[in-house]
């Protein structure tokens, strides 16, 4: 294994080393119950992080994912109470895609810097969630349809539905990115926007589409979370954007765009979730947990800089 491929495997090695260290520190880590918990705890944020990866590959950035998760969950729950599960899910994912579309258009048509544009929508969407729900959970009285609640708890072939969903999405979306003309267009747009343009790629359309993917996936995550929490929560999704971005960086995808893979982001997510789980099992104080997470994020960003120095 030469130096370059070793560097590329650092995220996976980090995850394994972290897991080993925690397993040595507490025998509760490797129990089936805990490992199942970790998978389920990671499921929602994995979907969000995959969406974030799309946007970053295309050269953009999306800070509004957390707010979109909350909005989608509440809209889905509300719609579900009135019109059934299918309508609820469609509404949740649809509203997420809509937020993504708005983000994409603001960035491409109005030319606003993605950081600022999605910072604005992050704040706006959160406000809309509170307006929509009156700051209370959805539904306030009553419960969501049983099959929907079951989805958040039941398993298929021993694995939670909540875990199957991101796994299936990972396979399907990885294929789209790696093998289809659309996927090549995304990578090219992120890797060299002008060069992509001069090779016939409709870069504005591609960029907007990455934001729509991100919004829609945040919508899916919102629906998943509503199932897990048995309600739509307006406070949901706090700090998701930071966790998602940290996961992308930890996984080794460059923040400038043009290079990276979805599975790498998933490894990054697991590093964050395993770290948090380990610290909880060891009852590390909350204050130290925050310090640890912050250090990990900075270390990952620094490693990203060194790796991708252009």
């Amino acid at each position, binding site marked *: 294994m030469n130096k370059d491929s070793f560097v590329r495997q650092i995220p996976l090695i980090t995850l394994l080393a972290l897991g080993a260290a925690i397993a040595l520190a507490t025998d509760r880590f490797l129990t089936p119950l805990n490992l199942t918990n970790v998978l389920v705890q990671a499921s929602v944020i994995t979907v969000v992080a995959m969406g974030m990866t799309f946007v970053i590959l295309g050269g953009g950035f999306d800070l509004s994912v957390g707010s979109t998760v909350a909005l989608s969950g509440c809209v889905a729950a509300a719609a579900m109470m009135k019109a059934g599960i299918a309508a609820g899910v469609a509404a949740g994912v649809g509203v997420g895609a809509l937020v993504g579309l708005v983000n994409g258009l603001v960035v491409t048509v109005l030319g606003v810097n993605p950081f600022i544009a999605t910072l604005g929508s992050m704040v706006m969407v959160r406000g809309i969630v509170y307006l929509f729900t009156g700051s209370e959970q959805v539904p306030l009285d009553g419960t969501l349809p049983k099959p929907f609640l079951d989805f958040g708890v039941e398993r298929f072939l021993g694995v939670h539905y909540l875990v199957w969903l991101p796994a299936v999405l990972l396979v399907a979306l990885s294929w789209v990115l790696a093998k289809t003309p659309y996927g090549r267009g995304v990578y090219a747009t992120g890797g*060299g926007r002008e060069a992509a343009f001069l090779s016939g790629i409709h870069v504005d359309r591609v960029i907007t589409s990455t934001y729509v993917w991100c919004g829609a996936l945040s919508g899916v995550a919102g629906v998943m979370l509503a199932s897990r929490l048995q309600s739509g929560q307006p406070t949901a999704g706090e700090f998701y954007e930071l966790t998602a971005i940290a996961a992308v960086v930890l996984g080794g995808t460059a923040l400038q765009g043009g290079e990276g893979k979805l599975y790498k982001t998933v490894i990054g997510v697991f590093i964050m979730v395993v770290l948090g789980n380990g610290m909880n099992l060891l009852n590390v104080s909350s204050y130290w947990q925050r310090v640890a997470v912050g250090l990990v994020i900075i270390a990952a960003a620094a490693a990203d800089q060194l790796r991708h120095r252009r």
Partner: protein
Amino acid sequence: MTPILVAEDVSKHYFATQALDHVTFAIAPGEVHALVGENGAGKSTLIKVLGGICRPDSGRILLDGSEARFHAPADAFAAGIAVIAQELRVVPSLSVAENVMLGHLPTRYGAVDWERTRAAAKEALARLNLALDLDAPVGSFNFAERQSVAIARALSRRARVLILDEPTAALEDREVERLFEVIRRLKSQGVAVLYVTHRLEEIAAIADRCSVMRDGRVVAGHGRGEFGIHDLVVEMTGREIDLERPGSGETAGAVLLHDVTDERLALRERHILGLAGLLGSGTSQLLRRLFGAERGARYTLRGEEFAPLHPSQAIAAGIGMVPNERALGLVLSHSIRDNIVLPNLKRFGKGAFARMDERAIDDVVRGLIKALDIRPAVPHAVVRSLSGGNQQKVVLAKWLAGRVSVLLMDEPTQGIDIAAKTHIHRLIREFAARGNSVLFASSELHEMLSLADAVLALRDNAIQGRFDRGSGLTERVLRDAMHGQR
């Protein structure tokens, strides 16, 4: 006379390219030394090393006989070496006085002393025999005047070596004369002037010595009286220019593409058309308009109306474009294979979300790598690590894979070594010979003369004239048209 600045056995490489190969170079005080060479010969790199912009891999720089190590351009500037780049680097929004004294504004109790600033600026300009309105913003002056401000800035820092990079590229003849006067004055004041140029006829007018670079080496040095243009060109290119064998070597066929409003802009089968123009004359914009990267084009393509609004339309019509910067023609972080596929996605995958025919891609890529002799011959090699010549071949491969019939090229051999240059010229001729058409812009007039069947001279975004081979196409005629002389 002892030289003031010496580059001793200096070498430098960028990735796979050896930009400077054991170069030794010296310039004496009060000497005007011209440096010539084709694109990619190493002139820019030598200037960067002398001016402290980059560090050599090996060898040393001697200033006044002792070794100098520059960690930043500021060090070289402070030591008395000033580089006046083609882009000038003056701040348009600041005044003349402030620009001249930029970086070392005199202060009084912490605040800027504007009186001393203006006095110093006035003195520096006086050395150039020039008086400008010291308070006017520099952006309000023309290129020649801004260039004088840049030179004055160097003088205000007591520059003893002035390096001028293509100073006359954007000047009219009258202004060139003025610049020569300035140089003669500075020469008499003991300033050493290193004068990098493409314009060989200027050397006889101004230089004391001339060094020729080729492929990263200094291959010849001449004194006054030895500045014959033909000899210099042979040294620069390493071969004789064949003005007898015309452009594409073929007879032109039917018109493929022409401008509705100006019939001089007509691309024919088996025909190579050149575009000659100074910096800012509009050559790049014209090419971009033809390609749909900019609006405002109305053409006829194979008899039908053609007004491309986006490059994808031009590509679908069989047109390809090689831009004037590699970063615009390639996604540098991607592989050879990825780049070749990019404009041809539709060919290899029907529909945005369809699976692509990876086998077919592999075959096409391998074939092109072989045909164009791209090195390293590894489809997954990242394009950034390739030499300039090989990178440009990948750009060509993109369009050959798509079987375009019209190739637009902006500075096709910029930054490429001699061998690759020859190869690319051959590829262009072969492309045309197959029944296709080429329109290329180049600032190297002998490249233009050797390759083109006809040349359009451009100035201020308008075609000034068309000169066909065999009926009055000479360097002099072209220059006049580009400069606006009758």
